[in-house]
């Protein structure tokens, strides 16, 4: 039993300064669905939790200048059921729906799903594919990084000791735009990904050539990865059988999967190829729909 203390700041500044003062024994508490599990399992034993729930500016879903903005502390169920989120990015709604159980999504937060930096997390791949940016705040200063650059390793992010994730900004997409997140897991629900692949692409309305594409992969490396080779193969092309096949193979070669209880590296490499193929195909279908 870890007998931690909990402190409840009312502003981001306060939270950040407390966090800094109490390093290395303090942790930020958002929903707690990852943190409390790590504490119970003994992988983390912080002395102090800085509970963020009293900071109103960390909550909510907004729009600004064609951007969808989601506060880091917004519970996953709110993201999942938001009509604004759905109107911007249906694939994000779908990805959030695939996380854990309803009970978990009622407590867990979007920021937590990102900042825990668990390699198999479901929202990072789709957010990266959608070009999301992280607004990071230290209380005094704010900075912004592309979410694709946010992760450094399992449980490690670019956040400095006195920083927290404030918001996620996701640009709106127009035209022949298709996006999808496909998750392969052992159970049909309440499970984590063996492999999760997100694809977002836009097609030229006349030629149907691929104008823009992002492929992001989860559970294939210590951090969520962009499949840049695969993207290069597809960009500017009319997306058909053989090219999709080549890109899927490239994606599986770009990944650095490990072997664990959910599957061997060999199996994961196969899955990446197979799921990337399905994800590209479905994203095209959606773009043309």
């Amino acid at each position, binding site marked *: 039993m870890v007998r931690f203390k909990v402190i409840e700041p009312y502003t981001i500044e306060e939270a950040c300064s407390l966090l800094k003062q109490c390093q290395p024994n303090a942790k930020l508490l958002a929903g707690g669905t990852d943190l409390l599990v790590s504490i119970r399992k003994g992988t983390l034993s912080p002395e102090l939790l800085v509970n963020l729930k009293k900071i109103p500016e960390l909550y909510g879903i907004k729009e600004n200048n064609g951007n969808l903005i989601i506060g880091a502390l917004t519970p996953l169920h709110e993201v999942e059921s938001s009509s604004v989120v759905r109107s911007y990015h249906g694939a994000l709604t779908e990805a959030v729906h695939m996380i854990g159980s*309803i*009970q978990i999504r009622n407590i867990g937060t979007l920021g937590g799903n990102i900042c825990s930096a668990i390699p198999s997390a479901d929202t990072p791949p789709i957010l990266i594919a959608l070009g999301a940016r992280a607004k990071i705040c230290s209380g005094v200063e704010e900075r912004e990084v592309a979410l694709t650059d946010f992760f450094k390793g399992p449980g490690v992010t670019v956040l400095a000791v006195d920083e927290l994730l404030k918001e996620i900004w996701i640009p709106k997409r127009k035209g022949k735009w298709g996006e999808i997140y496909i998750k392969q897991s052992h159970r049909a629900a309440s499970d984590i990904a063996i492999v999760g692949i997100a694809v977002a692409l836009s097609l030229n309305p006349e030629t149907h050539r691929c104008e823009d594409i992002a492929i992001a992969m989860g559970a294939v490396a210590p951090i969520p990865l962009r499949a840049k080779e695969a993207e290069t193969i597809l960009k500017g092309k009319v997306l058909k059988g053989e090219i999709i096949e080549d890109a899927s193979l490239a994606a599986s070669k770009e990944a650095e999967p490990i072997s664990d209880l959910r599957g061997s590296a060999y199996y994961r490499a196969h899955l990446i190829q197979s799921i990337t193929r399905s994800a590209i195909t479905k994203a095209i279908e959606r773009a043309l729909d």
Partner: protein
Amino acid sequence: MLSIKMKINGETLQVKIEPYESLVEVLRDKLNLTGTKKSCNLGNCGSCTVLMDGRPVNSCLVLALDARGKEITTIEGIAAKGEALHPLQIAFVEEGAIQCGFCTPGMIMAAKGLLDRNLNPNEEEIRQAIAGNICRCTGYVKIVKAIQAASYKLQVKLRA
């Protein structure tokens, strides 16, 4: 030790808690509301499901202090005033949805969370709503039937 206020099953209580205590521990050990079960203590089984402000949550993953000022509903508090059982509880008994009964309180709370929002769910929605609740006895067949039966009864009641 902190002293916090929570509304539990309609009654506002002042409870003394430790900051590291989870809601399920406080419910079971301090308030003797042992209807809520603890089975995995890691948010993977749903046995400890209660409603917090109307939404099903794993009470093992909620710090008791985060329940401050919230409305908590447990299995002991769902029957309407003057009635012994909630329609879901009746349906679980009648449909044979209960074997060992250990998952039942959490299962019923998850089902209530669903029916309170969607009185007429389809089978897929029911299965989704209880996907975080493990039952080792029933194979879920009669649990799904019981939720369907309760949904029907509640709809009839609403129309009447």
